[in-house]
């Protein structure tokens, strides 16, 4: 991994279109400004991982579930009717 030291307000460029700026430092927290093309995904890693894992899980269950969808739906609706 490439490691660079930067001061507050200094920036790093990645390629032609990406600029990362250290915009604020408070104790152990650093605010980072990111300028990147619209089509480039920028996410906090834990959020990215969480969504990715949920997509994987959704796909895996979808494979097993396809014929049961109407049945599952009917049960869900029935549960609601019974609950009211």
């Amino acid at each position, binding site marked *: 991994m490439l490691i660079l030291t930067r001061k507050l307000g200094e920036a790093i460029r990645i390629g032609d279109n990406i600029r990362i700026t250290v915009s604020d430092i408070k104790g152990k927290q650093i605010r980072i400004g990111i300028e990147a093309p*619209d089509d480039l995904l920028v996410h906090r890693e834990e959020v990215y991982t969480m*969504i990715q894992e949920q997509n*994987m899980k959704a796909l895996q*269950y979808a494979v097993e579930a396809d014929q*049961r*969808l*109407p049945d599952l739906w009917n*049960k*869900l609706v029935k549960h609601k009717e019974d609950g009211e």
Partner: protein
Amino acid sequence: MKISTSRFGDIPVDETRIIQMRGGILGFEHLKQYILLTQDEKTPFWWLQSTEDGAIAFVVINSFVVDPVYAPIITDNDVRLLEIASSEDVVSMSVVTIVADPLKITANMRAPIIINIKKKLAKQIVLQNNEYAVQYSLTDTASAMENDGVGDAGNLSNLKKVSTTLAL
């Protein structure tokens, strides 16, 4: 064109209905083209089927059917990326995680697949709205689904109609 899918077999695909993913579905960024299919119109579930990999299909549900006051906030960058001119052109689909117990089925309200129906452009957008859950239980949405009627979700014009409250 015709595609081979593991779920629906060989199906003809009207190329004008192909949705281009800009940014892709997280974890599946290499797949750029999908189509929306219905399997059973008595349920509000749709399939988002990859046209490039027949094995990849997600169950999705209109986010506004799940939550009629859903108000996703989309950044200017994404509005530009998806070439959105009017909120009426936009549909929000939440990826559904089906589990054996129907009471534990969830929809991802935090990272909906936002589709510009007019331009056929889409992206899974991780919303800035922290209040929306990645695993939102469908059992929490009783009144909404009864009002909208299960059958109403059967075509795209209805989906458009319920999506007009999208905050852009």
